């Protein structure tokens, strides 16, 4: 294999660049790199899901080839619980995530340190100048980008009260930061050197929420170099593997008063929005949260701590309202199955995976049939009926999967589907928001071991088969996931 040394700095003995591209092939060619590979970091990253700070470490690992397991969901890691256990605190005294534990027992907290550890030399910058420049941009992200980005974005997510003055000031600071980046990227492809480095990874992750929530086309228009660089980065395979598809903001998100009120204790909510209290448990949970908040305030937190609290709230939001909290842990990871179902062949991959991992104690399978097929007229209206129901069940997505199919044609159709729920009961009764549609359906719990169940699951998930019990041809299907 031929690799030519191509470095701007002729004093560099080897091309960091080439190594970044292909650590494995390089290591085959040169024993020196092999020894580096053997020392490659391997371990577990504890975090809550979708944590941009954890992304930095995850992307670095994608580039370096470090073996990184991510523990973000039960049973491996439950945010708010696992990180308060004595075992966790003895390794990570702050109890914050992301936190990294190597397979060799080596522990690290602080996301930048973890990302640094999981990087290779190419990402860290292989000359003293380059590594110092990487550190410069990493610090820039933390001190210049994150404070105004949080001040602007958090209220739009409903996790912080809106303050017009603070938001306007933050916008100005974001403009200043973008101008600096735009100027720098005018003549450069990446922030340091000619290849992606930890500088790009860190700054991209720090700008992620801004680009997703508020940097609408008109706002980012004066900074074309920044957007070019950002879009290129997020579309590199290593970024994509961690971030998925990132959709740039179309319209600047504004403060979401309702969402904010929902997340606050009742007495803080504006009187207009106040609804009669219905669930004691819910209220109590909120009270606890309020008390925690007050503790924080009493101890006069540094601004950064306050932000972490907000992020924690963001991550914890679905959990505080989790109607399935009373159920024991399950071995069946629904998300895993959904990924298989979405990305791979249903009959050969997703279905075998489903039956192999399905946990009959933790989940149940239901057949639901629309009770009023005679009222179904145009098929597109029937489809809206299904998708509308899915939308109203939005918060159930984490704990359910369904394939609902419209059979027949205009004025001669029926709707039925196969639903997989967490627990042994119909999930709809657990939350009043979910009770709008389910009464229009007849529900029948299927015997997991029965042939009927196997056939129905197969046909409904694959959208093909005889559908013997229906008597009408398949028209179209909708997936709830």
């Amino acid at each position, binding site marked *: 294999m031929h690799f030519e040394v191509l470095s701007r700095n002729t004093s560099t003995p080897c091309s960091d*660049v080439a190594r970044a591209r292909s650590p494995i092939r390089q290591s085959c060619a040169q024993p020196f790199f092999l020894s580096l590979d053997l020392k490659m970091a391997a371990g577990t990253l504890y975090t809550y899901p979708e944590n941009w700070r954890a992304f930095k470490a995850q992307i670095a690992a994608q580039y370096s080839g470090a073996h990184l397991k991510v523990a973000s969901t039960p049973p491996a890691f439950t945010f708010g619980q696992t990180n308060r256990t004595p075992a966790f605190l003895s390794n990570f005294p702050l109890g914050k995530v992301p936190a990294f534990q190597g397979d060799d027992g080596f522990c690290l907290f602080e996301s930048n340190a973890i990302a640094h550890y999981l990087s290779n030399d190419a990402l860290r910058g292989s000359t003293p100048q380059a590594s110092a420049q990487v550190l410069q941009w990493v610090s820039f992200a933390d001190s210049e980008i994150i404070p105004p980005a949080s001040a602007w974005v958090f209220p739009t997510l409903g996790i912080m009260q809106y303050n017009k003055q603070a938001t306007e000031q933050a916008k100005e600071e974001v403009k200043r930061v973008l101008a600096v980046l735009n100027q720098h990227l005018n003549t450069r*492809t990446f922030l340091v050197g000619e290849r992606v480095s930890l500088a790009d990874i860190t700054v991209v992750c720090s700008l992620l929420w801004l680009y997703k929530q508020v940097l609408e086309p008109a706002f980012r228009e004066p900074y*074309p170099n920044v957007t070019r660089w950002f879009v290129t980065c997020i579309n590199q395979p290593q970024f994509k593997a961690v971030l998925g598809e990132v959709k740039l903001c179309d319209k600047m998100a504004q403060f979401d008063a309702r969402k904010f009120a929902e997340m606050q204790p009742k007495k803080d909510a504006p009187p207009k929005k106040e609804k009669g209290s219905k669930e004691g448990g819910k209220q109590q949970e909120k009270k606890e949260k309020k008390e925690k908040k007050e503790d924080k305030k009493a101890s006069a937190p540094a601004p950064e701590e306050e932000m972490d609290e907000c992020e924690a709230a963001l991550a914890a939001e679905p959990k505080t309202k989790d109607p399935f909290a009373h159920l024991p842990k399950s071995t069946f990871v629904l998300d895993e199955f959904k990924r298989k179902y979405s990305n791979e062949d249903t009959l050969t991959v997703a279905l075998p995976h489903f039956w192999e991992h399905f946990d009959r104690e933790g989940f149940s399978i239901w057949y639901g049939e629309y009770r009023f097929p005679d009222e179904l007229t145009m098929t597109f209206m029937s489809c809206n009926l299904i998708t509308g129901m899915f939308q109203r069940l939005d918060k159930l997505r984490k704990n359910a999967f369904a394939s609902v199919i419209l059979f027949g044609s205009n004025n001669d159709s029926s709707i039925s589907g196969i639903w997989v729920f967490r627990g042994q009961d119909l999930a709809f009764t657990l939350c009043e928001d979910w009770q709008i549609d389910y009464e229009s359906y007849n529900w029948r719990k299927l015997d997991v071991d029965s042939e009927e169940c196997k056939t129905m699951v197969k046909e409904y998930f694959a959208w093909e088969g005889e559908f013997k019990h229906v008597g009408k041809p398949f028209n179209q299907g909708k997936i709830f996931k």
Partner: protein
Amino acid sequence: MALRELSSLEKSLGLKKPNKYSTQGDKKVPVLQSNNGPSLTGLVTIATHLVREANRPELLGSTAEQRAVVQQWLEYRVTKLDNCPKEEIKTILQDLNQYLEDKVYMAGDTFTLADTLMYYGIHRIMVDLAVQEKEKHANVSRWFDHVQHYPGVRHHLPLLVVLRNRLYTSGHH
């Protein structure tokens, strides 16, 4: 010229066994002699063949759209860029500069054969540009500098200096 280019491409692709080439006609169109099967004619045909031989299909584009844009620029390279008259260079640079304003690579978000061949093709133009001209076409210069530093690409061509900081700050704005 085209032959040295193909030999550089072979090296950058990690192909161990160099191929035998000859040229055809006044324009010196490259021809790849093959032991089994017919010979291949033309830069793009041969380059595409080499990429397939090296089993690097991603260099031809990973999506249908990216593949089409790669082909577009390969075609542009031979039909427009090669042998372009002096008076057209300005237009070409302006067009490319505009095209590259929001792009890092010629096609899609990853490095492809279009970058390699466009770089080989435009090198002779960039060599003759004054610093001021390079600054004027900042996006082309930035792309050019990135590609010439891309591992294994440059080979037979001299490294050109592209300035990071502006010398001529007034005008062109």
